[in-house]
């Protein structure tokens, strides 16, 4: 909300500068987003000297003056009584622009030419004072530009008003708040008694008083719609509103002054009396923004006997709006239910300054006050000689505010303070409609504009705010001692992170969204959780796998010249399941590029499937019962389409499928322009792991006797899987065999087509003694015989 410092001072004799004000407002809970110093809202006005004052030949109340602007003398007709020879005055010469955009031209007033205008403070938009012209400080040099000499005349603060404080969305509201905080009484102007109505008021019926608790209205005849005077235009411009014409400007002025949205109808365009009702489905209205809206039965409208004429609390209708031609008007000042207005505004996707205030809650008390002040202003600014005003209609069903009963000790208990009864009273009194002692408790009746005050907690906040949060002491919580605990899922996540980092992986954070395009690139075409209101195409779906994010990251880093990539991410994945979402915590990794970038290392060695498999095995070291299965033929899973169907393994636990590790599918690799890389990926279900519990490791004794190793090299079909060879070597179990390691795998020169040469290192040992050479030799012979029998292995010599 834009708050004009000058305007605020009209309600409250602040006594502090705009800068100080900006520093104090946050103490009350209102941050100041920006401060803007403003110069006067006019130009072309210069400092002049009145050389002579003569009576106007054709008008008693006008004078004919000659004003010197330092270089030229101007004949000016003036209507002010206080004009006198020798005065220094603001002279708006021909061409000057006054607040509201009004440009001065040569004019004839009662037959006499006037080449300018001597201005009042009010006409220049510098203040409220309207009694005659501004006789200025004589120190200003004649002929100087007044706007320049004055410099900054106002300061506009952009104050952030939280949704709970709609009462502060106005200058009066904020002044009230500051009055209670700074202990400065508000300026009050005596309520003028309006004359009795001389014409009947348009009838208004409210069908649903809950939707419209108060509706105040008044009819006018004999209006003159014209530009607003300078002071009014300047005020609106200061807070960022465009002056339109006097009647609309008056309503906008009250919106900003009291926070009461109002609407003026052209009474000649209304057909019969008004009714506040919910729209009939399909009813249409063209609003002031020239757009047509199709209403639903949840939209509240103001309708005449034929049609909706305004969207209640949101925007008036174009066809019944006040125009320059309007002679008769009906002025609405109502209170609408916040929920109803918000629903209407959301249904129509239409917002306005009015709906903003109504959906936060306006002051039903202000509805009548605003109508009253508006009427006074209309009398002053929009009147033809035959202005006629009706009495007021007031459909009021606002419930009386509920008082809050609370003791000072309850308030102190919430805050941890020890405020005395006297402080509680003096602090809460200024913001109450009524504060009285009822037994040991205070009975606080909130004013009509404080709909947010309903509980002792609300009053505790007021007490803290108005005395300052700094008054509350610092204390450490006297909570019942209870040890804190962690969550298995969280400790697991941290351990997984730690292990992957120690394996050389860097952690990525990707967004949980995936575009249709990326999903298609990753061959993930069906079964995605879709976002109803994505910000952009990139936010169309929730990710079913973490891998697309890592692929994006790999692409980016390769573009940036990275060679070796080891990336991982922990995060949620989402898959639709009936009317719900299956949300799973996963860990995914990606690796590619040279195995080592060191000058020492052999060239051409690149990270491959076995590095990915090794990383996964290391990560899962200690988890019992993990099995590897070929991906092909396994039960399908969400991220499968990203994996090479043959070049990947499924990881399985007794309790379910843990994940997949393998090569990237060539089609996916091509989509990310990585077909020339050997991209290895894995993804694991951490929720499944979190459910497991492995016993803490226990010491296992090892033999004190030296062991023996033997390398065996043999030829075997390339199609023979290594794990079947290893199984053969192990079976039947030989307790002397301590280890099997593949040391070399070779095909090519010297090895027949279709065969591979494998060298396997066998380790033997016993816990009770050193093995004899002959025993080891015999064991190796047995193993070779098994390999030969089962796999046709031929020993290489």
């Amino acid at each position, binding site marked *: 909300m834009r708050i004009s410092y000058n305007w605020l001072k009209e309600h409250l004799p602040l006594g502090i500068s705009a800068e100080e004000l900006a520093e104090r407002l946050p103490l009350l809970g209102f941050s100041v987003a920006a401060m803007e110093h403003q110069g006067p809202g006019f130009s072309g006005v210069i400092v002049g000297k009145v050389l002579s004052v003569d009576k106007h030949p054709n008008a008693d109340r006008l004078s004919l003056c000659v004003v010197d602007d330092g270089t030229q003398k101007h004949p000016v007709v003036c209507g002010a009584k206080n004009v006198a020879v020798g005065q220094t005055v603001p002279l708006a010469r021909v061409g000057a622009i006054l607040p509201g955009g009004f440009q001065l031209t040569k004019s004839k007033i009662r037959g006499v030419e006037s080449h300018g205008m001597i201005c009042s403070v009010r006409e220049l938009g510098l203040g409220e004072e309207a009694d005659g012209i501004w006789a200025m400080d004589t120190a200003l040099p004649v002929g100087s530009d007044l706007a320049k000499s004055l410099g900054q005349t106002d300061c506009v603060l952009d104050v952030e008003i939280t*949704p709970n404080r709609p009462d502060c969305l106005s200058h009066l509201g904020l002044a009230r708040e500051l009055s209670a905080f700074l202990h400065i009484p508000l300026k009050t102007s005596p309520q003028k008694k309006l004359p009795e109505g001389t014409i009947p008021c348009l009838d208004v019926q409210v069908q649903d008083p809950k939707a419209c608790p108060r509706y105040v209205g008044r009819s006018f005849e004999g209006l003159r719609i014209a530009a607003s005077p300078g002071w009014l235009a300047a005020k609106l411009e200061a807070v960022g509103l465009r002056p339109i014409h006097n009647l609309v400007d008056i309503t906008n002025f009250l919106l900003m002054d009291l926070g009461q949205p109002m609407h003026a109808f052209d009474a000649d365009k209304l057909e019969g009396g008004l009714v506040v009702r919910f729209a009939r489905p399909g009813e249409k209205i063209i609003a002031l923004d020239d757009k047509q809206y199709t209403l639903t039965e949840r939209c509240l409208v103001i309708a005449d006997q034929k049609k909706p004429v305004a969207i209640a609390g949101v925007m008036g209708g174009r066809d019944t709006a006040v125009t320059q031609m309007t002679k008769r008007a009906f002025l609405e000042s109502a209170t609408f239910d916040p929920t109803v207005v918000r629903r209407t505004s959301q249904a129509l996707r239409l917002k306005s300054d009015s709906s903003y205030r109504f959906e936060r809650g306006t002051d039903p008390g202000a509805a009548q006050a605003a109508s009253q002040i508006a009427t006074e202003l209309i009398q002053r600014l929009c009147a033809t000689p035959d202005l006629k005003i009706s009495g007021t209609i007031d459909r009021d069903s606002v419930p009386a505010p509920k008082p809050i009963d609370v003791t000072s000790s309850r308030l102190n208990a919430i805050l*941890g303070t020890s405020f005395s009864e006297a402080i509680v009273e003096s602090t809460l009194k200024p913001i109450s409609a009524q504060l009285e002692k009822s037994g040991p408790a205070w009975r606080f009746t909130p004013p009509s504009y404080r709909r947010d005050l309903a509980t002792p907690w609300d009053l*505790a*906040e007021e007490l803290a705010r108005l005395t300052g949060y700094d008054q509350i002491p610092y204390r450490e919580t006297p*909570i019942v001692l209870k040890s804190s605990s962690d*969550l298995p899922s969280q400790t697991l996540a941290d351990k997984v992170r730690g292990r992957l980092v120690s394996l050389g992986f860097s952690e990525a954070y990707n967004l949980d969204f995936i575009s249709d395009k990326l999903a298609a690139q990753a061959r993930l075409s069906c079964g995605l959780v*879709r976002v109803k209101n994505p910000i952009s195409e990139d936010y169309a779906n*929730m990710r079913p796998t973490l891998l697309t994010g890592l692929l994006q990251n790999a692409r980016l880093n390769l573009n940036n010249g990275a060679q070796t990539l080891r990336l991982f991410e922990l995060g949620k994945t989402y898959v639709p399941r009936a009317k719900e979402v299956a949300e799973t915590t996963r860990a995914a990794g990606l690796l590619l590029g040279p195995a080592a970038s060191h000058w020492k290392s052999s060239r051409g060695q690149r990270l491959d499937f076995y590095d990915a498999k090794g990383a996964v095995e290391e990560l899962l070291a200690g988890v019992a019962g993990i099995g590897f299965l070929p991906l092909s033929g396994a039960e399908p899973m969400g991220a499968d389409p990203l994996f090479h169907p043959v070049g990947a393994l499924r990881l399985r636990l007794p309790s379910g499928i843990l994940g997949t590790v393998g090569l990237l599918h060539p089609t996916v690799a091509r989509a990310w322009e990585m077909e020339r890389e050997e991209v290895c990926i894995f993804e694991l279900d951490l929720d499944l792991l979190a459910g497991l519990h492995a016993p803490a490791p226990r010491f296992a004794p090892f033999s004190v006797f030296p062991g023996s190793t033997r390398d065996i090299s043999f030829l075997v079909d390339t199609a023979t899987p290594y794990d079947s060879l290893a199984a053969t070597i192990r079976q039947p179990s030989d307790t002397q065999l301590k280890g099997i390691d593949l040391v070399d795998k070779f095909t090519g020169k010297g090895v027949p087509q279709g065969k591979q040469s494998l060298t396997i290192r066998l380790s033997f040992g016993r816990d009770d003694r050193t093995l004899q050479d002959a025993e080891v030799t015999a064991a190796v012979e047995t193993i070779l015989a098994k390999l030969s029998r089962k796999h046709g292995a031929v020993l290489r010599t």
Partner: protein
Amino acid sequence: MSAADLSELGKKLDALESGLDTAQLDLNALEAFRVQSLGRKGEVTELLKSLKELSLEDRRAVGPRVQALKTKFEDSIARRRAELETAADAASLQNIDLDLSLPASAPPRGRLHPLTQTLQEISRILSLMGFSWAEGPLVETERHNFEALNIPEHHAARDLQDTFYLQDIPLLLRTHTSPVQIRTMESQQPPLRVICPGRVFRHEAVDATHSAVFHQIEGLAVDKGISFADLKGTLETFLKKVFGPRTKTRFLPSYYPFTEPSADVYASCIFCSGSGCPICKQSGWIEIMGAGMVHPNVFKAVGYDPELWSGFAFGMGVERIAILRLGVPDMRLFFSNDLRFLKQFDENLV
């Protein structure tokens, strides 16, 4: 033993002794010579073994000589070995082929994401202060994300949190970690103290200071007799642990639908210690988090009696703290996953 035998033995000893010359042998030859003479079947060894067959008298006569010969062999071999090793060491000290200035061979080492590091540090501190871990789903119900937190449907307070909704599924992406508070209170009885760290979503345009995805850590304490003063004391302790013992705190009124009274919590600027700098916009204070006393409507929503229990809640943005601690100029960098960014942040060893 006959005289002839004795003389035979004496010749053998003489021959062995005269053959003892290790001066020209290299290490391999020396070892071969050692095996040949002193090994298990070496000549000197055999000779020593043969002494057992002699009479006591004979043994007394020749034994010392044979022993002396053995010692002589041992000494000679040891001396030569020492000579050779000294020479070899001297050579290897001279002829080293090593450019010490060549770059090191770095083992691959990964990094935790700076947000993980920040999140872990904050939660470590709060754990030490007695807060337990809690977590909840990222896809949430309207009830947990809004209604139970005193944010009714069609209320202007919802404007504070623009929300992602799902298609055809009546769920949303949580806009804050506060629904975890609700889930915790629904499943546990007070007293309790929990922290809920995690990812949240806001439907807003992305720029240097806004992201549609970001992270929060939220804390909640419920017990009898907890007051705003306890909130202030706890958060002061926390902020001193995060930003250093000289950190000052400041509480200003604010509005959150689920707390009353509500506050925004500021720490004295860690860059200028409060004297004013561009980072704190010359105010000396940096906004760190939102906080307040749990709103009675929230307690009612989870079946706690607000007249019996009271509590406070606080929440902070992890990115914001990370930005302050690490000097990251643009929030989007956290989600760029550019290794040139990720590799910069390491947990300090000291």
